[in-house]
């Protein structure tokens, strides 16, 4: 168990280190000279001297590894500098925008989990029924729909045609529903399909037959045994879903003008605001790493067999 976790932690820390290196490279090797950008940002006409001065001030004349560690020290203290576009401290901007994004992701996550489990259970309980086929059609549609386009359709129908909600939201909970729905539809489609096939595989297992043969109630077999066994491999998928959502809100937020981190980053990309992009890359990577680690922990707790499976056996 310790070894297993250790391996995971090694991989995840490797990811984190690589991310910081990439972020660092991003800030330094990008087509914009940070010193020049700084001078321009302070509304001065850059002269060679000033740039040199700022360069020394920012530590850009130091060797590259030292620059990296300086940058890392600053990053740990949440000092990422200022945004080229808004002129604010990046940390402040992120602080304001992180919460709405998190709310959006949370609502989507709840939608996804509820819809996945209920639709999956119903489909597996009545396989090949009309309902099952409808869900199958929904799955194919959900997997194929371009989310931003779907978002615009919803926006057009609900905001432009029927005027149920304002077109531009200010981050109220009630206007979070449409973007959350848009975000979750494709993920529900993927997850329902997975859970359904997991459930159907499990229903035909010997242990279900034996559970019935020793007189357990049907609902108990379905919830305590079949669902438990089918959900175990889904834990990792749900964690990935969460991380994917954190990274994937960008397009949807800009569609619905949701005042979150995603919309903020899209604006920064259009403005080629690299310091902000760097911070975003860092945040998303950290979320990814943390949720993966959490998923592994839950997996070990729920499924002791994880530790027991060994890889290839035929070696020659």
């Amino acid at each position, binding site marked *: *168990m310790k*070894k*297993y976790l250790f391996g995971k932690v090694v991989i995840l820390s490797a990811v984190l280190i690589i991310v910081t290196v990439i972020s660092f490279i991003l800030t330094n090797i990008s087509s914009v000279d940070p010193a020049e950008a700084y001078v321009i940002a302070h509304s001065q006409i850059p002269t060679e001297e000033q740039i040199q001065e700022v360069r020394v001030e920012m530590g850009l004349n130091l060797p590259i590894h030292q620059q990296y560690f300086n940058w890392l020290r600053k990053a740990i203290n949440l000092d990422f500098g200022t945004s080229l576009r808004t002129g604010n401290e990046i940390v402040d901007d992120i602080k304001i925008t992180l919460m709405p994004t998190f709310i959006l992701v949370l609502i989507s996550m709840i939608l996804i989990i509820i819809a996945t489990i209920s639709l999956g259970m119903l489909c597996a309980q009545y396989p090949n029924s009309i309902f099952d086929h409808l869900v199958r059609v929904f799955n194919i549609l959900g997997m194929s729909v371009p989310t931003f386009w779907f978002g615009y359709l919803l926006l057009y129908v609900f905001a432009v045609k029927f005027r149920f909600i304002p077109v531009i939201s200010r981050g109220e909970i009630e206007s979070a529903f449409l973007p959350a729905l848009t975000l979750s539809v494709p993920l529900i489609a993927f997850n329902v399909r997975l859970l359904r096939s997991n459930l159907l595989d499990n229903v035909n297992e010997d242990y279900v037959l034996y559970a019935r043969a020793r007189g357990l109630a049907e609902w108990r077999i379905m919830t305590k045994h079949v669902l438990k066994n089918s959900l175990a491999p889904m834990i990792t998928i749900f964690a990935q879903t969460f991380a994917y959502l954190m990274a994937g809100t960008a397009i949807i937020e800009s569609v619905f003008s949701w005042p979150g981190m995603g919309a903020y980053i899209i604006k920064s990309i259009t403005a080629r605001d690299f310091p902000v992009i760097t911070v975003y890359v860092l945040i998303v990577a950290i979320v990814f790493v943390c949720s993966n680690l959490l998923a592994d922990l839950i997996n070990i707790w729920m499924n*002791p067999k994880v*530790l*027991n*499976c*060994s890889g290839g056996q035929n070696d*020659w």
Partner: protein
Amino acid sequence: MIKVNGINKRYLKKDGRGNRVEINALKDVDYDLSAEGIYAIVGESGSGKSTLAKVLTGVEVCDSGDLFWNDTRMVSASFFNDKEIRRNVHLVLQNSKDALNPKMSIYDCIAEPIRNLCKLDKSTEYQRVESLIKMVELDEKVLIKRAHELSGGELKRVNIARAIATNPQLIVFDEATSGLDVIVKKKILDLLKRIQEKNACRMLFITHDIEVALYMSKDIAVMQKGKIVERVQNVSCLSDFRVAYSKLLIDAMPVFGMSVTQVESATYKSVG
């Protein structure tokens, strides 16, 4: 012909808590096959009998110990890749359906060792496969089929045909009859006896079923926990086995463990 001296084999396995545990599959095992005939090794699961079969056929490399082929000492690793030895040693795997590539025709499966190990032209190759399929008493029609279209007994026969394709001197059978119905099982075993007589080769049966061992062979070794606990070279009656563990295995056979009254009422003819 083939002889192993003091071979050891360990491998790592994960236990219930995910810790790696070393398993001694073979502990200081000596075994040899010399004269033509049928040999058998009996053991329960985990006794290391399958590992021994794999070491004898070169599929697995042992950690230490010596392997002799016709009195020359072989390096375990090169033993497997030697074409001469590949032609003369064959291992028939337990799961006869899984041992055939599902995407290949039966003809290709049987012809595979011939193509790899003997250089024959197309028509001789075809004749050879045809004669093999006759030898295992199958119809020629199966040659164009795939593995999933055949029954358990037919699959076993195809595996046997592939095993004798290169006329090997030693064929090792890992659980030759598991998963077969009793009637088919007997037919297969009788077929193997006939083939052994005709080809004058050595056959080694690795089995958990002591009845199969007693039926097929006069030279039976019993394995327990990676060791050969007893080897009887010329079995004539059950009392030849003297070690407690062997007696336990024999005792576990229902036919010998039945109560006296039932024994009296059951009089069936002896085939062994």
